């Protein structure tokens, strides 16, 4: 599945300072859909190069990291249960850096 992932608010520093990643994520064996939960673990394994604790806490994002799926707050779409589709755009923004 083709997805566009965007990291902002300082999170880009955890993945080689690259803000926008066009990625291809394969479904797990036998899975019919890709959820945000799957995507987070994929990002953790494949994109985050340092300090993963700045991005994740448990199996979700660290509190203070905002997530938007197609420019919509993921709190409206079920957070970890949000189902992703081809060409979706997922944005991660940290609010934890200085003001």
């Amino acid at each position: 599945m083709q997805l566009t992932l965007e990291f902002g608010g300082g999170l880009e520093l955890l993945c080689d300072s690259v803000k926008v990643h066009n990625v291809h994520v394969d479904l797990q064996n036998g899975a019919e859909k890709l959820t945000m939960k799957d995507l987070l673990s994929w990002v953790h394994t494949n994109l985050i190069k340092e300090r993963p604790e700045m991005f994740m806490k448990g199996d979700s994002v660290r509190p203070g990291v905002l997530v938007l799926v197609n420019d919509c707050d993921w709190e409206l779409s079920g957070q970890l249960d949000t189902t992703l589709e081809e060409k979706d755009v997922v944005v991660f923004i940290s609010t934890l850096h200085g003001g």
Partner: protein
Amino acid sequence: MEKEDSKSKKAGGRLCCICNQRRAALKRPKTLEQICRECFYEVFEEEIHQVIVENQLFKPGERIAIGASGGKDSTVLAYVLSELNRRHNYSLDLFLLSIDEGITGYRDDSLETVKRNEIQYGLPLKIVSYKDLYGWTMDEIVRVIGLKNNCTFCGVFRRQALDRGASLLKVDKIATGHNADDIAETVLLNILRGDIARLSRCTSITTGEDGPIPRCKPFKYTYEKEIVMYAYFKRLDYFSTECIYSPNAYRGFAREFIKDLERIRPRAILDIIKSGENFRISTSTKMPEQGNCERCGYISSQKSCKACVLLEGLNRGLPKLGIGRSRGHNNDGRKDGKQINGTSIESKQCGTLDF
């Protein structure tokens, strides 16, 4: 079209609960309402306007310096204040005021953001540097003192630098971008430190009214999440890199705790602020008396202000001067007010958020 379809599917076709027409784009932490972008801009700006009016933060004709770091909060503050100033005829003269601490690879980059903001928002910018004011950059200070206590120097110097810059600009007031999350965090930190003097004033929306230049916090009730969402949706240009010298450990714990609470119950942030506001300090608690520094005239509860003591240490090659627990402990009720105040600074990790 494809994007539009998937969007509607994911949001469950939820409509904005204010206009009932457009699709909701975010969930407000303050009210849990699901609202669209357009309604969000409106309620976000209007709430800040109400806070400004109800608390009489500004008077017509005043000159106001916006403490601008290039970060998300001050960038959104500069944008929203100039917008509200136009829309509601505040008749304010707005300025951007930035501090150059002299931190290569951090502040020089963020100052570039502020310089762009100067052009984007049409607000005159004044930059004052530690080098000019004190003869030292933070890079030079760190070379002498290392990575311990450097945030003490930076915090003490910044507070004065903002005041000095403000008096150069001849402004009546400084507006800072401290948001609700910052204030809740500071309430907790002051409780954890037993810093009664700061606890009692950290929730005030305006401080220093008895001093030369008062400061106010128009974002006192504004959630960090909404500030960042606003900046994202409006594509505002801000800088977000952590200071290269800041370990910020103690504040970091408080921050994480607040964010954990927010996830479970977003109201917690406003409730902590409310608790802070309603603390009644017992009359038997001795509070530090405010005077003036004998050397530079800056407000101080000691003979010499903290900046002068730190600077003397640097210049005499004794950088530990003014650092350390030499003046008694906060938790010792028998110490007098001056001593209580004496320890409150050196335990701080980073002064960016000091009030």
